[in-house]
């Protein structure tokens, strides 16, 4: 009795309604704990400590980011232009929403609203899947273009989407690797498709065999598995929109790339955007400016409209703006892709070796490490959330025992929070 009192008073005063159950040792109370509060507090402290280790785990990469941004700001500025801000923003929104549903799920577990809890966990899971779907579009798109870590970087503005054959002949990749790089989206989607099919089979089997519990588990999980492809579709639509301004440099690089462009199979969803931009911009872009024009304008999507307006002779203000834009862009981005001698971004001298595309891959090395480890954390989160979902269907949680939902929630918020840092650092800061 003394133990119970001291624990209750010293650590946790709010859960006094559970005091009466102390001696029952309910099934969810582990044998080595005296009280539910002690168990909850231990778990809570444990998960916070775990989150501390997670932050420190990421801190190494944030450090590397800071160091290399300081050492090679021009590489970071130039390369971050390749990231699609729209996709990043969508993913940020999706994760923020999933944090909301997760926090709500914690509340529901406390109030014993079991059905709502299942629905909210399933929503959180679906958001995680959408995130991964969008991410897989981003990844596969970059892999096809050769925006890779320095060891395998092969991006060239002249030929943005090399075919598998070209990869083997020019860049020395093995046949299978080249095939993978040009069709990476299928490879990423394959395991998710398998999972979706497996869940579907499970659902049917559970329905046929009349196992209500398994059916109740499989139903939300099928939605979850399918939402990955929702994410892929969303990513495809946005990426093709996002390619609008990237299309400019495809055009600038010359019509010869256009022919090859149609061939690549992995992500040719952007073709309509290309043809449009070719028509509108080709005349203005000169061949040696291709590196500069590929950069996204600070004016963002309005830029196309501004340019359209600037075509009118009387609109001198906008004409000047567009001209200034171009000059600024050619200066700001020259480090990566244009002649370094002509560029000046406030750093007095730049060694020319830095500007080989291979070295520019340092940015992508860090990009893939940070987002990749983050994606692994999303996957781990999906794993524990599925476990939670099944337990929630089983109605394991009650007002005295909702610890696991709470802990997973905290973990999920951290994963979200890390993305909130990654998004501006990688996509927005230019």
């Amino acid at each position, binding site marked *: 009795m003394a133990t119970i009192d001291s624990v209750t008073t010293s650590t946790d005063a709010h859960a006094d309604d559970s005091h009466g159950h102390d001696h029952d040792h309910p099934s969810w109370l582990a044998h080595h704990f005296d009280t539910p509060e002690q168990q909850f507090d231990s778990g809570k402290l*444990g998960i916070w400590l775990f989150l501390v280790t997670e932050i*420190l785990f990421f801190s*190494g990469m944030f450090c590397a980011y800071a160091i290399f941004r300081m050492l090679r700001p021009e590489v970071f500025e130039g390369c971050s232009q390749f990231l699609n801000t729209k996709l990043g923003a969508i993913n940020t929104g999706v994760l923020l929403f999933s944090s909301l549903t997760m926090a709500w799920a914690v509340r529901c577990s406390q109030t014993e609203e079991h059905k709502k809890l299942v629905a909210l966990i399933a929503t959180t899971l679906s958001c995680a899947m959408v995130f991964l779907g969008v991410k897989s579009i981003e990844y596969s798109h970059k892999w096809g273009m050769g925006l890779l*870590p*320095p060891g395998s970087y092969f991006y060239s503005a002249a030929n943005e989407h090399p075919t598998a054959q070209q990869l083997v002949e020019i860049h020395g990749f093995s046949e299978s690797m080249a095939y993978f790089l040009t069709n990476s989206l299928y490879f990423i989607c394959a395991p998710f498709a398998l999972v979706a099919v497996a869940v579907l089979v499970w659902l049917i089997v559970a329905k046929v065999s009349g196992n209500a519990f398994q059916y109740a588990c499989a139903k939300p999980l099928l939605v979850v598995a399918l939402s990955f492809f929702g994410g892929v579709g969303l990513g495809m639509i946005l990426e093709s929109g996002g390619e609008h301004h990237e299309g400019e440099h495809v055009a600038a690089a010359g019509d010869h790339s256009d022919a090859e462009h149609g061939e690549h199979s992995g992500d040719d969803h952007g073709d309509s955007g290309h043809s449009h931009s070719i028509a509108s911009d080709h005349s203005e872009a000169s061949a040696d400016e291709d590196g500069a024009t590929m950069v996204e304008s600070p004016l963002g999507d309005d830029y196309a409209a501004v340019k359209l307006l600037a075509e009118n002779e009387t609109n001198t203000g906008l004409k000047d703006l567009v001209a200034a834009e171009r000059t600024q862009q050619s200066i700001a981005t020259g480090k990566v892709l244009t002649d370094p001698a002509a560029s000046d971004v406030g750093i007095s001298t730049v060694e020319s070796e830095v500007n080989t595309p*291979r070295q520019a891959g340092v940015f992508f090395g*860090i990009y893939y490490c940070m987002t990749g480890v983050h994606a692994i954390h999303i996957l781990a989160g999906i794993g524990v959330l599925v476990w939670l979902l099944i337990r929630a269907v089983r109605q394991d949680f009650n007002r005295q025992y909702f610890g696991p939902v709470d802990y997973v929630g905290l973990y999920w918020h951290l994963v979200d929070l890390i993305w909130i840092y990654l998004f501006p650092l990688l996509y927005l800061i230019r």
Partner: protein
Amino acid sequence: MSNATLPAGARDPGYPTERENYLTNSSGILSWMFTLDHKRIGLMYLIGVMSAFAVGGLLALAIRLHLLDPNGWMFSGAEANNIYNQVFTLHGAIMVFLFIIPSIPAALGNFLVPVMLGAKDVGFPRLNLSSFYLWVFGALFFVTALFSSGLDTGWTFYTPYSTTTDTSVILATLGAFILGFSSIFTGLNFIVTINTMRPPGMTWFKMPLFLWATYATSIIQVLATPVLGITLLLLIAERTMHIGIFDPEFNGDPVTYQHFFWFYSHPAVYIMILPAFGIISELISVHSHKHIFGYRFIAYSSIAIALLGFLVWGHHMFTAGMSSLTTIVFSALTFTVSVPSAIKVFNWLATMYKGSISLTTPMCYAISFIFLFTIGGLTGLFLGTLATDLHLHDTYFVVAHFHYVMVGGTLIAFLGGVFHWWPKMVGKLYNETHGRIAALLVFLGFNGTFLPQFVLGSRGMPRRYATYDPEFAFLHQLSTFGALLLGVGLLYAFVVLMVSLVKGRRAPANPWGGVTLEWQCTSPPPYYNFERPPVVGDPYDFHNLEWDAENERYVTTEPERKLVPESTPEEVPVHAGGQK
């Protein structure tokens, strides 16, 4: 019974029944493999780290035997130097990652922390078991690395060599990565256990000092190890994908690797030494039968070391090309760590002063610890000083300093701890005489091995060389013979322990006269440790202990309590109406 000589209120928990004894309450290999009992996990860890130590120790002997001759004695042929490189690398990696880091916290700590807290188990028993299996997997990776193409980078995996060598760096770093998680989970578990599961009455400053040390260690494990994890992960990525962070060929920066690595690995040496401090604090006090001197100072200095340990990693890199300002700052910070360490040593000496010292086997180890750790700590000052470090960097002086702290410190304390808690863990007493002889052999062998290395280093013998100038031959040979003696001593100690399992007398609950809670349960403890939370007092107050000569054990006595004195006092104070 013999309790006639004892006061009436003598308490002793007696002996556990077969069913209660944690070793025998369930049987079969599965009952061990899937056990959640922290004591069994601790014992499995003990077996594990001891096997790792045996492998690492044999590799160390191979190193020393090779250095018997200036041109190399042990390995011959064209590959001799490569083999030597692999042997010293594996010696370092196995000893650091598989032995020293988990030795005291995971093996002894797992056994002791809940018992010292009077708790039934650690906070997360399943996490505890998984951390043991992570250790096993990590060890398997190391073994695989050993049998595939070896590893010759040194245990530090410095780039750019580690990104270019064709030995199995990836296997070994994956192993270290997994071991890191094992270490994190152990630390996390202990922090939670100590925070939330202390018994009623045990405030922070009534905790045994071993728990303070474990707590400080756990803080470092939780805060530093993830950084090692990501560093090794980036190293693997660098090797496989050339991400260009560490590899200069791809515009990476090798010094960044060193910073990342030492940000973990310097605090890691405190992971290795802090629990040793905790053991020594227990041993010195119990075997001197005297209250620990400066309890709060020892407790705070553990935390101080844990925190200061995070600020000094740069002293491993004085010659790596940091700016002179950085080196000066790191050098100055390095000296701050020596303050709490010195506080501990002085407090231990003050505890022994006027104590009633029993020169038992654990105490022999504790006294050697103080002697050896002091030498190790003081020679560290020469390495922390910029000017002398430029001369001594990467010489045998560093090797000797490190081994004086890690072997003379941690290993000796680990042995002391094992001998101290052996009766509690297995319920058998070992032969004291042989135990002491083993301790003496270890002490002599150790000094024979590493004292000459200080001289070697200051004369300019670089570390990690397979061959050397003939002028160093005498000291190297001295060192090799010392190592052989050390090996014999350790083997002897092992045999003493093993023999005790077969022939040892049954251990009483309290053979040494300790007052911390683990001595209040039977030897070995029952699987539930304590039926009800035990009464907590001052962990170093030895007044209520009495030696029971008949049964050769200590028993807890209660001072006889009387409501009214039986005899009338001879003098009555004046204010009570008395007259002289």
